[in-house]
């Protein structure tokens, strides 16, 4: 059990009113809030030891380098990576996926090769592969979703063939909340000699991951969705693969020796960290992970399970509401997508209420949710909807906030009941 009231004290932003109502921040799938220790780590760095890393001989630079490199160890420990050198800092999860598509993909994908994705991927785990496939005349395939909004595992074995070079799957859908059986898929991919990449942008913040146990080849995730600052992402890759791949972005820091016409590359992970990195935010990200580790990822997951179960029950009781997701807290993280329809006056049969209208009205009640396609346009097209309203939870959310959401949804109905 989490001491949510105590946790909330660490997040100054939560203690405010929006349109005279207490803020209920239920948009954690977009970005999480940051505890004071994370914010302080940023100002602390700039106030007391701001300097460039890996190059200065002076004390401040040594201090900054040590703090930055220490976060590599913290991240490795958090995801159970055998070696901190397998951790590459990027700008975000998107850049981490692009790094693989560029540095691994351009070397290893050729005409006719297949890349297997799923129908529930975020654009950031789709577009990099589209561009690669176009360039290399490779083929993208997609694991379909079932009526239950889970991956259709029966279809996977047919979809993974001798041509499949990579399987790339989200750990948790940012729309449906579905938690995918990544360990099982890793096994199927490896059986076919394909590599396996996990988009952990949603999964890692809410249930963590054990990359050694899952046995993925690559994992991408992003600090800002897990209490950390924006501007920091992580690519985990198996050391051997990272050593074989070519660089992604080129310039300073990623080289060893340079001549006018050629250069040799620095060792992994520096080979992939060209230029001055986001030192302050990486250091603050370390504090975010420590904060989560203090709570314990199992407790995080259990708290969200409880909130999700409660919210599902409340939302299922709400009339004219459709939920897109497994509707089972065991199969789904703290993300619930839904749409609303309204029945108006006596002669009206009911119309759909657009998610943007839902978002605007609940905002007036202090409730922050996301409305739209959530960077998953192909999934929306498959579901035949323009978008969804989405509530997503984290460690500081309470059942009262879910009550505030259902109350606000009542207001949506009231507004449209005047039809």
């Amino acid at each position, binding site marked *: 059990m989490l001491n949510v009231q105590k946790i909330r004290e660490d997040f100054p932003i939560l203690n405010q009113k929006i349109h005279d109502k207490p803020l209920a921040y239920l948009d954690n799938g977009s970005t999480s809030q940051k505890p004071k220790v994370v914010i302080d780590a940023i100002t602390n760095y700039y106030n007391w030891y701001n300097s460039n890393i890996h190059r200065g001989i002076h004390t401040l630079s040594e201090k900054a380098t040590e703090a930055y490199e220490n976060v590599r160890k913290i991240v490795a420990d958090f995801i159970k990576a055998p070696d901190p050198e397998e951790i590459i800092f990027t700008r975000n999860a998107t850049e981490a996926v692009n790094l693989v598509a560029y540095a691994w993909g351009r070397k290893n994908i050729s005409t006719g090769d297949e890349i297997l994705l799923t129908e529930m991927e975020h654009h950031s785990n789709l577009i990099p592969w589209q561009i690669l496939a176009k360039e290399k005349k490779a083929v993208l395939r997609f694991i379909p979703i079932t009526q239950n909004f889970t991956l259709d595992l029966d279809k996977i074995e047919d979809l993974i063939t001798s041509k499949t070079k990579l399987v790339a799957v989200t750990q948790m859908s940012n729309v449906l909340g579905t938690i995918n059986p990544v360990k099982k898929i890793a096994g199927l991919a490896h059986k076919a000699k394909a590599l396996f990449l996990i988009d952990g942008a949603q999964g890692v913040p809410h249930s963590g991951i054990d990359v050694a146990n899952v046995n993925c080849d690559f994992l991408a995730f992003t600090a800002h969705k897990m209490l950390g600052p924006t501007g920091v992402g992580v690519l985990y890759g198996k050391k051997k693969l990272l050593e074989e791949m070519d660089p992604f972005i080129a310039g300073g820091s990623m080289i060893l020796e340079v001549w006018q016409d050629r250069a040799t590359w620095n060792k992994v992970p520096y080979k992939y960290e060209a230029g001055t990195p986001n030192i302050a935010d990486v250091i603050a990200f370390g504090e975010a992970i420590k904060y989560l580790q203090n709570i314990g990822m199992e407790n995080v997951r259990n708290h969200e399970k409880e909130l999700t179960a409660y919210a599902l029950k409340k939302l299922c009781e709400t009339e004219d509401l459709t939920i897109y997701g497994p509707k089972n807290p065991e199969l789904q993280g703290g993300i619930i997508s839904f749409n609303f329809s309204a029945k*108006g006056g006596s002669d009206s049969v009911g*119309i759909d*209420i*657009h998610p943007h*209208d839902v978002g605007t009205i609940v905002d007036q009640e202090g409730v922050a949710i996301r409305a739209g396609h959530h960077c998953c*346009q192909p999934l929306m097209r498959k579901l035949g909807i*323009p*978008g969804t309203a989405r509530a997503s939870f984290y460690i500081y959310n309470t059942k009262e906030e879910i009550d505030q959401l259902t109350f606000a949804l009542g207001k949506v109905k009231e*507004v449209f009941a005047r*039809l």
Partner: protein
Amino acid sequence: MSAIEDLYREIILDHYSSPRNRGELPAPALKIEGANPLCGDELVLYIEEKDGQIKQVKINTKGCSISQASASLMTEAIVGKKIEEIQKIIENFKDMMLKDGSFTPTVDLGDLEVLEGVKKYPVRIKCALLAWNTLIEGLKALQNHKKPEPVVME
């Protein structure tokens, strides 16, 4: 009236649930598409013009209540009018939606005035403007006797 009722005025909800001038017109009526990809709002506008007058307007829309109501209200405001009159309505409407401070129309905007409430919700102004920006391009195409390009809002 609460802030939210000021946005979702009855006229807006009425046009949302029973949109006017819905449908298509056969060629040679002008056909132009508009989209707001970030929201997923889409529409197709058909205009039949003769001697500088808009004889018929039809529109097919997909989107939120604000974008659909604005499109429906727009068709009512322009059908049967001379293009010069319509240009004035467009100018007034855009001023109402985009200019800071209080606004005094130079033409009678009629029911269109209910959309002024959208101004308090900056992220939704785009929704109200989609149909109008599409109309502007459509009229340009009519004047230049050119095939119109789809309007894509950012």
